């Protein structure tokens, strides 16, 4: 049985009409020029919808009484590949561990989300937020209070309805 092969006749360099090509190009650009549909997103007014797994500025979860959920176990500074978390842990008189100093340098952070993955009490999260421009470098070091103030939605590294990944 014979088979059919498609053969494209491409223009030969010395025998094609470039005037025709130039004019059809002009027509193409003209169609785009008058086309009212533009792809530009007017950013500050139109916000991009972030994906549920977008990893951005960190959020420290708090208990109902306003204390941070962090138990200063030291796992996040250990796992952090960019070494951007500084944690000094302390213990209160009931023996509960809490962070005395908890700082994240958002400038050094690579937003891998490992701190969130490793956290045993789901205290530190990466969030769905990226507009953290500052006037000085020092302002990029977020301390514990500032991390707790962040109110943007946190990243779903997994499906909340299926936390064990089944």
């Amino acid at each position, binding site marked *: *049985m*014979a*088979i*059919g*092969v*498609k*053969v*494209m*006749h*491409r*223009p*030969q360099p*010395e*025998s*094609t*009409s*470039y*005037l*025709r*090509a*130039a004019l059809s*190009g*002009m027509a*193409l*650009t*003209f169609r*785009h*020029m*008058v*086309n009212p*549909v*533009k*792809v*530009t997103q*007017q950013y500050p007014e139109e916000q991009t919808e972030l994906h549920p797994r977008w990893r951005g500025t960190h959020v420290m979860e708090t208990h109902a009484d306003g204390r941070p959920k962090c138990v200063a176990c030291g796992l996040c500074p250990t796992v952090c590949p960019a070494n951007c978390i500084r944690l000094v842990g302390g213990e209160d008189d009931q023996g509960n561990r809490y962070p005395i100093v908890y700082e994240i340098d958002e400038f050094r952070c690579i937003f891998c989300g490992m701190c969130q993955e490793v956290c045993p009490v789901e205290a530190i999260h990466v969030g769905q937020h990226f507009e953290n421009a500052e006037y000085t470098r020092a302002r990029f070091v977020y301390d514990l209070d500032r991390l707790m103030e962040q109110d943007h939605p946190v990243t779903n590294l997994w499906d909340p309805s299926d936390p064990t990944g089944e």
Partner: protein
Amino acid sequence: MSVEPISGVPALIAMALKGPIIFGIVMVVVAYTTLAERRVSAWIQDRSGPNRVGPFGLLQPIADGIKNIIKEETLPATASRFFFILAPILVLVPSLVTFAVIPFAAPLPTPWGVVDMVIADLPIGILYVLAFSSLAVYGVVLGGWASNNKYAFLGGLRASAQMVSYEVSLGLSLIAVLMLAGNVTLTEIIWKQQQLGMWFALPLSLAFILFVISAFAETNRLPFDMPEAESELITGYHTEYSAMKFSAFMISEFGHMVTASAMMATLFFGGWDLPGTWDDAFWYQGQLISGFAADGSVILANPAWWKTLLTFAGFGAKTALFLVLYIWVRWTLPRFRYDQVMSLGWKVMLPTALAYMMLIAGTILTLDTIGMTWGFGYGLALTAVSGAATVAFVFFLDRGRTIAGAAAQRAQRVEVKTIPGAVARAGR
């Protein structure tokens, strides 16, 4: 109101007013051409362009200007200081002074007399424009050389070769216009177009095409922007310039564009002339006339301020049309290779311009010999000859494919070839 030319002190005041006003208008047009360039390029690429400063981004040129003024001026340590500073001035001045001879509206009647709507109606008209537009190349070459930067230097060299090459065909394509008009004064060229009953783009179509191509090359716009060629030469001759000196180069580039567009409108599209004879006006033996009656006596023109306004709007619209063409072409066509630019200039444009000049000279001579009167029929005869020449030129330029178009259609054809003996395997 008398239909007398303005004279005495009011004439001096009118002169003193016209210059700054037109200079201001040209500068504003240049500024807004930069905005138009950015907006149109954005639209062509399905973007919206600068729309943040002011309504629709209309204050963007002012923001650009302020930014360029307060930026730091750099002066390369090894640059030739004097020429480095001289170059932007040498580029800027010719691009702006050429506007002085271009008539932009019908004469305006005032209580003191009729004011010509042109800054200086020089008797040498076009020669003045050509002289000054070729001066601009000195600034470009000097800027490239004085920067002491090899990219800038190459850009300057390319600019000199390209601008000198296309200057030739630009001038030669104009000779057809001068022969038909019989004068180099721009007011008289417009008058002749009004008398012919058609704009010179029709009876001199090939000259118009040659002029447009040469003007693109003269103003260093794409597809002929060899002197800048960002992908090869950074930005060519103004690589080392910053802040307001860079801005001067930019203003001159856009100023050249505006002047070239105004020249195209004046020479080939009737300047401020609008269709119909109601706006025709010309100083003929001390009288402002709008035409000649059948017995050869003059018909006096009746200037009015609304005619001036309308014709000014018409001139602006024609110029804007060519400005948009400039921008549109820039964002469509890719850059030529340098040898292609040169071979187009010397091997195609120059011989064509020469041959066309001979053809038009022969046709005008023939028409005059057989006693055809200057008028619409005269224009039609020239239109036919020029049209044939244009078709022949385009056919030759496009390797005989424009009319046949065989390759273009063949390129889109997909042929299905059957290979006997080959077996289609299942599962493939």
